[in-house]
């Protein structure tokens, strides 16, 4: 009898220890977030003590390594947005058209084969995209537009666009497939063609899921580092010319960490300020996407 009680007590203790340990594993993810925020904030505070946030956010010249130093982040933001916009121009129409084809036209077998093949594109390391941009895309661009610089925004935007393509096609396809069959049948019953049902019934019904996939893909493009570092160059400028060399926020952070800037100097601290801005931009896009996805779920479940 006492032996039985003891065994039971041991199980109760085991249960408590295990649940605490597992909770601890979950808490690691909270500690990670706290770590990111604390590191970015404390290190940026040192930077913003010397450079006013207004100058940082509104200045149009970025030259921390030159005398006179200038800390206007807008050229880096401009570079990042230029790449994100260029990649979207490639990936959004092609990705959405792919999703519509797979969901509305293709047989189940074709869909099951093509989707994973396209998803391979998203799994290829970004350094490979950088290689592709500089050895394949740039030479082609230079034959078409001879004024293209060796490092240029266009080649980076194209390879990043190809990289984010499967995110848009796969997630949009999920959203399109989730549209109830009855909506399509109602459209056909009214005499609409397949094209009209696809573009005027199914796509509008799946719009929130589709736009969530766009936001995810664009935030990936904004955070993309190696392809833009390799192919787009390291010249921060307020230019919208895709054929010129530019610099993104991520490429700047890599540039500083590759150089011999001493840790703790004002110039080194710029990477934390730029990193904080990058973190906030992608966080805002994430939250927006989650809100849109939640609304999407409410409609169809």
């Amino acid at each position, binding site marked *: 009898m006492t032996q039985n009680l003891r065994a039971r007590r041991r199980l109760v203790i085991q*249960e408590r220890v295990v649940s605490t340990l597992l909770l601890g594993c979950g808490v690691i993810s909270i500690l990670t977030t706290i770590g990111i925020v604390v590191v970015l904030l404390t290190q940026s505070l040192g930077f913003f003590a010397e450079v006013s946030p207004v100058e940082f956010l509104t200045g149009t010249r970025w030259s921390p390594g030159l005398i006179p130093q200038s800390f206007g982040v807008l050229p880096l933001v401009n570079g990042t947005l230029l790449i994100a916009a260029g990649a979207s121009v490639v990936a959004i129409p092609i990705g959405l058209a792919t999703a519509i084809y797979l969901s509305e036209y293709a047989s189940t077998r074709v869909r099951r084969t093509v989707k994973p093949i396209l998803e391979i594109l998203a799994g290829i390391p970004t350094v490979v995209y950088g290689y592709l941009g500089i050895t394949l895309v740039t030479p082609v661009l230079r034959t078409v537009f001879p004024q293209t610089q060796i490092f240029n925004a266009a080649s980076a935007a194209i390879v990043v666009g190809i990289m984010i393509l499967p995110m848009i096609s796969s997630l949009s396809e999920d959203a399109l497939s989730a549209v109830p069959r009855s909506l399509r049948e109602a459209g056909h019953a009214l005499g609409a063609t397949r094209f009209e049902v696809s573009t005027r019934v199914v796509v509008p019904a799946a719009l929130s899921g589709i736009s969530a996939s766009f936001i995810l893909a664009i935030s990936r493009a904004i955070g993309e*580092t190696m392809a833009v570092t390799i192919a787009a160059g390291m010249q921060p400028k307020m230019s919208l010319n895709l054929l010129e060399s530019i610099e993104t926020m991520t490429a700047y952070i890599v540039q500083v960490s590759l150089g011999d800037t001493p840790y703790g100097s004002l110039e080194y601290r710029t990477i934390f300020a730029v990193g904080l801005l990058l973190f906030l931009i992608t966080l805002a896009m994430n939250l927006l996407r989650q809100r849109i996805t939640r609304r999407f779920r409410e409609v169809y479940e």
Partner: protein
Amino acid sequence: MSAPPFGPHGAEHVTAPTAPSIDPRGGRFEPRIETRRRKGRVFQALCLGAVIFGIASLVVLLVDVAADGLDVLSIDFLTRYASRIPSRAGIRAPILGSLWVMALVAAVSFPLGVGAALYLEEYAPKSWFTRMLQTNIANLAGVPSIVYGILGLAVFVRFFALGRSVLAGALTLALLILPVIIISAQEAIRAVPNSLREASYGLGATRWQTIRHQVLPVAMPGILTGTILALSRAIGETAPLIMIGALTFIAFDPATPLDSFTVLPIQIYNWVTLPQEEFRHLAAGGIVVLLTALLLMNASAIVLRNRYRKKL
């Protein structure tokens, strides 16, 4: 004011019946079915073109890399250290570095990720804390990898003074892929039928006994699939490790977790940035090796997933 005698519309509005008009502009309805079908065919062709574009991009990428890189592949290339002379350069140190990093990342992120997933699926009460935990994990999955690099640099390299070591790099990448592992492990655990748990409880098992002997064995193939895919992301990561300072000339085999190191993608980056054509070929050779490793990892994940599907 007197009301009209026949209700609000009045009898004076009644006119002779005309042909019903469906078109809001007042004309007759023209089905124009041929034009509309033609439009549809053009649209379908465009969409098919988009699919072909995606697949063609993948083919071009693979063919281009293979054409540039296959001729540098040799046993010497795999077993030599890096060199300033292209014909003598190899990827011995990066391969060993990548293997070290992979092993440490797996050792850290697998137990933590599965533990967190088990907590969220099997233990967590429905509370604000659980919701916050879940939202937090979703947000971490969207944080750019370079931000993890900044975190690793400040926390592991500087604060814990691990230096530019294998361990610092592995811990950084472990945090990076942790959300991916948690989310996929959660899906695998959620897919375990509840009847199994209820049968186990019915026989008097505790919660942990149920998880250990019923839930985990059934969920394990799914968990492993997700982990392998997450690790295949870690093996290709470059930016966070550059932040850690792994871009150095290494001509020795890392022997302990505190040695400095380099990894395959960083060696590729290093060669890509050099102007000479020969180094581009070496980079392509490195890419062939990297993609082969990725292919093997993905193939094993697919095999696991298929076996899992059959079982359920």
